[in-house]
């Protein structure tokens, strides 16, 4: 990897890693189901950026874009399904509290 590339990678790398940490922290620490999904979105954003970055660095933008487009479609569907599950949970529990999801244990 040449010097300029390494430089670019380095900055993006730190930002992406911190975005990962934020997303993971949000998922683990928040008590609201929708916030959990937002945390998940943050993680996926970081991955998207990483993919594009690797494509950019290896001059392989075409493939990287193709992958990212597919990835975005899949991401949307997962969010839709997750949203549906969260709405159903709300209808059942009358609450979005994650701490009420402890029925199955042991």
């Amino acid at each position, binding site marked *: *990897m040449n010097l300029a*590339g*390494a*430089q*670019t*990678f*380095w*900055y*993006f790398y*730190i*930002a992406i*890693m*911190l*975005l990962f*940490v*934020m997303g993971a*922290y*949000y998922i683990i*620490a928040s008590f*609201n189901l*929708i*916030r959990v*999904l*937002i945390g998940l*979105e*943050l993680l996926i*954003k970081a991955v*998207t*950026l990483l993919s*594009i*970055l690797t494509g*950019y660095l*290896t*001059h*392989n*933008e*075409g*493939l*990287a*874009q*193709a*992958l*990212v*487009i*597919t990835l*975005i*479609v899949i*991401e*949307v*569907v997962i*969010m*839709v*399904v997750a*949203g*549906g599950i*969260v*709405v159903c949970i*709300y*209808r059942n529990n009358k609450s*979005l509290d994650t701490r009420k999801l402890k029925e199955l244990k042991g």
Partner: protein
Amino acid sequence: MALNLILLVLLLVAGIWTVLTTRLVRSVVGLALVSAVVSILIFRLNSPLAAAFELSVCAGLISVIFVTTISFTQRLTAERLEERRKERLGKYWYLPVILIIFGILLVVFKPKLDFPLPQVPSEQDTRNIIWHMRHVDLLGQILIILAGVFGVVILFKEPKK
């Protein structure tokens, strides 16, 4: 490069705001902001098609999905909100600390980037790649959209009383 740096900082700030804000709707707006910044970054990384997709689908569609989901559920009352705010303060002040520590760790353990970059295939037109080389993914996209449709049909239907 400087613009990239500013955008990255903006990305992190938007991310932190998304995590720390009290109102759910604001959090969704924060996510949309993150998405927007990401799509600008993608655009600047020579990937216009993906940037357009990211902007329209993620910043747009996903925000709509979240707002819809929130509208299906009830908002909190003002007092509960106040309680929550206190709760959240206790919980979330760790995050900046963790981020700073993690950032320092990343800087200290900087990975060596001396590996050679691979030779890449000559075909670089995204549309060509999607339509001619990655049929299987295309099939997967159609299929997962179908699955999503079934999901919406099954999960969002109002239960019969």
